[in-house]
């Protein structure tokens, strides 16, 4: 009865662990990043529990420091960076461009193994005693003072970087070389544009963090004087190298989410995007300008005031392409046929939270104001609005939107709407109070804090528990839908795009015949020629 598709084409563990199918590799990634998300979330819970009271009474200082470090390392390197590209991107990019697979299927599988190896190193570091440097590994603390498993964790980050580089390389070659006939650059889905820009950052930026963590390891082991002034090094050099990657890495996390939102807003407004080329080029603009703003992390580190001004003005400029996207998404809903299914709820939530996250980034780019808010909870709130309010909302929205395609099953819509609402409320309650605590002056990474900050921390911890419910719910009903969900149609949303023209779940080779493309995606008006020729 059941038709042959990528899920039942081969059974047993080996058929998964040795697969070269981009769709199965996407699912390998989906399982692994979900596990890492749970681990990172567990560390976050301990942090929020500790901060319920001003005294450092739940964990020892050392343990607390390890918890926020591991939370950052796991969430950034093992969840956020691979989240959308390695799962949804891996699954959808070949389908969206009418190809049977990525350009290098074996390298795709290799990148998952490298990712897992890096993850194992990091987990070994965590289990064998942890690392307490903060995910930023600032020197000379990390090289000269920290008495924890810095090298193991740094190696984990170093190794997993190669998986990022290989994925980026694979995407770039695939998008350049494997588009179906007629699929010109300006007919590409915006999801693909976003991943193209992301891949550029991955291959240009990741080698720098790899070199940087290697230098940290070299200084720690061999006492080469690179960063430690006692050995003749320069501690601030590390910050330049680190943020040269790690600021663009923020765009590795948010650009794919922006691509997801572009797709969802079109599908659930039944309308093509407003200002296609502005959205497409704004992704590239973010990727390029994003490489030139790292110095805004060093305004109070004694950086030259003129360098600071240059970084400040560039940081303001990188906000413009993001603003363009937000305005265009909003305009896309105008005169649309808006269907408030759960993916669209996540997309609307994304637009609101990303707007706040982006605008508060401007506060930090303003040099005079940054003196006060730098290294306070204001920064923590800002980047969680981008990472959690932006990237994770985008990820969850995309996961729901494409879930019927990926699994061939429908998830329960009422539960999904409820979860989206809980995530939105829980998120704001968790992170909005941190803006207030930050402007009041509460420094980040504080195990104990003066009592006047307590009320904001209690609100934040309460919000975090609500947020946790919002994350556990989808885990339950999505898994449940795998077994009990209704069979998904080819195009359950009435959306337009190559992925909605092949069966759910897709066959292993995606397309029986290579499609010929005559127009861009999301063209809903019936007058034009529709469908693959």
């Amino acid at each position, binding site marked *: 009865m059941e038709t042959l598709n990528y899920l039942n084409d081969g059974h047993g563990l080996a058929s998964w662990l040795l697969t070269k199918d981009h769709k199965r590799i996407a699912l390998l990634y989906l399982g692994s990043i979900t596990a890492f998300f749970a681990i990172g979330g567990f560390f976050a819970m301990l942090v929020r529990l500790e901060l319920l009271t001003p005294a450092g009474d739940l964990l020892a200082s050392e343990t607390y420091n390890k918890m926020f470090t591991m939370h950052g390392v796991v969430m950034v390197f093992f969840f956020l960076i691979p989240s959308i590209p390695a799962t949804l991107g891996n699954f959808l990019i070949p389908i969206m461009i009418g190809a049977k697979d990525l350009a290098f299927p074996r390298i795709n599988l290799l990148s998952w193994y490298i990712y897992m190896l890096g993850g194992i190193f990091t987990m070994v570091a965590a289990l064998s005693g942890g690392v*307490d440097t903060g995910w930023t590994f600032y020197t000379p603390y990390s090289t000269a003072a920290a008495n924890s498993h810095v090298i193991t964790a740094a190696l984990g980050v170093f190794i997993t970087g190669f998986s990022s580089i290989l994925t980026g390389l694979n995407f770039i070659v695939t998008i350049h070389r494997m588009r179906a006939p007629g699929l010109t650059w300006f007919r590409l889905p915006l999801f693909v544009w976003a991943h193209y820009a992301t891949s550029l950052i991955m291959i240009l930026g990741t080698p720098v963090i790899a070199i940087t963590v290697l230098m940290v390891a070299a200084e720690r082991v061999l006492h080469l004087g690179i960063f430690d002034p006692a050995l003749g090094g320069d501690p601030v050099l590390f910050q330049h190298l680190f943020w040269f990657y790690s600021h663009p890495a923020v765009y590795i996390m948010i650009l794919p989410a922006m691509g997801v939102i572009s797709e969802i807003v079109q599908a659930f407004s039944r309308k093509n995007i407003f200002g296609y080329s502005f959205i497409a080029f704004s992704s590239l603009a973010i990727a390029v300008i994003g490489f030139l703003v790292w110095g805004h992390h060093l305004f109070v580190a004694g950086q030259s005031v003129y360098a600071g001004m240059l970084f400040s003005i560039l940081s303001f400029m990188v*906000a413009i392409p993001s603003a363009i996207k937000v305005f265009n998404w909003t305009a896309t809903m105008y005169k649309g046929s808006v269907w*408030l299914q759960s993916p669209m709820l996540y997309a609307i939530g994304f637009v*609101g939270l990303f707007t706040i996250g982006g605008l508060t980034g401007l506060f930090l780019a303003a040099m*005079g104001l940054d003196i006060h808010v730098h290294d306070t909870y204001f920064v923590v709130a800002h980047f969680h609005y981008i990472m959690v309010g932006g990237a994770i909302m985008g990820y969850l929205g995309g996961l729901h939107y494409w879930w019927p395609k990926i699994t061939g099953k429908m998830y329960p819509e009422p539960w999904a709407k409820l979860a989206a609402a809980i995530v939105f409320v829980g998120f704001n309650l968790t992170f909005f109070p941190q803006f207030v605590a930050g402007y009041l002056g509460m420094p980040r990474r504080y195990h104990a804090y003066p009592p006047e900050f307590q009320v904001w921390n209690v609100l934040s911890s309460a919000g975090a528990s609500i947020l946790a419910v919002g994350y556990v719910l989808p885990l339950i009903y999505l898994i449940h839908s795998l077994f009990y969900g209704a069979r998904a149609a080819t195009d359950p949303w009435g959306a337009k795009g190559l992925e909605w023209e092949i069966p759910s779940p897709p066959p292993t080779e995606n397309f029986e015949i290579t499609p010929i493309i005559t127009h861009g995606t999301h063209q809903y008006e019936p007058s034009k020629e529709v469908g693959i020729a």
Partner: protein
Amino acid sequence: MFTNFPFFPQAASAQASQIDAVFFFMLAVSGFFSVLIAALVVIFAFKYRRRHDDEIGEAIHGALALELLWMFIPFGITMVMFAWGAKVFFDLYRPPAGAMEIFVVGKQWMWKVQHMDGQREINELHVPVGRTVKLIMGSEDVIHSFYIPAFRVKADVIPGRYNTLWFEATKPGTYHLFCAEYCGTKHSGMIGWVTAMEPAAFEAWLSGGRAEDSPVAAGQKLFQDLVCVTCHTPGAQARGPILTGLWGKQIELQGGGKVTFDEAYIRESIVNPQAKIVAGFQPIMPTFQGLVTEEQLLQLIAYVRSVAQQPAEAAPAGAGGAAAPAPEIKR
């Protein structure tokens, strides 16, 4: 349960209002745009909600005029934010002349403060209101960051170099002092209090207690003990540059180039004397890295600076062998 429910930090320095003004401007702009976007999204979601299954949206591909509008208006606004933020930063970057100087050393996990009159404090800083205070800060180990929220000032304290920070307290009171850069296990314990006092009360505080040697006097003793005095004062054995009159001058270097004779150069010449040799001298000075603590370095610099500020002809006060026997150096 919570008696203390603060929304906004106290503002107790001259620069606090400048920084808060930028904040409120940006808050207003951000609030406007957040509400605008949220309102549009909610209105569109309601007004254009799908009424039957086959409904499709109207094909609108874009409008160049709108795109340009929402590109250039935000650009203009952000440039105002940039200029304002940069101006405030620039104004706060250089301390006004005649500021009262205080040395601060950060170490895991405490702040050590020494006033020019010799008064020392740990995790506390007493300052007079109405007077500009300049902190000269160094670190003994890792990077720290000196942060007084009520004054809206913060600067990283970095090993191997000096960072400065200045403020003018305006309201007497006691304010939080935090370390803002993660520095290890007891990072959140590296906190203290800043007490701003009326000038008279401050003078009384300064003269009370057990004042120790001023940094200049302590530095002078070190200058003797470490036998810097042999080479750097006029005499038969003077094999290094004589320090008087050098302060702020451009110094010619061996192999070309120049360097300004300032705190940073003095520091470098003590810990890494081979780095920049003054023209006409031999690279014979040994390094003192590891032999002097960060605090002693600050004292040595204070003394060298006091000598270098004297006119070149005058002999440095008390630099001869007739000085009183040097007492034990206090850590």
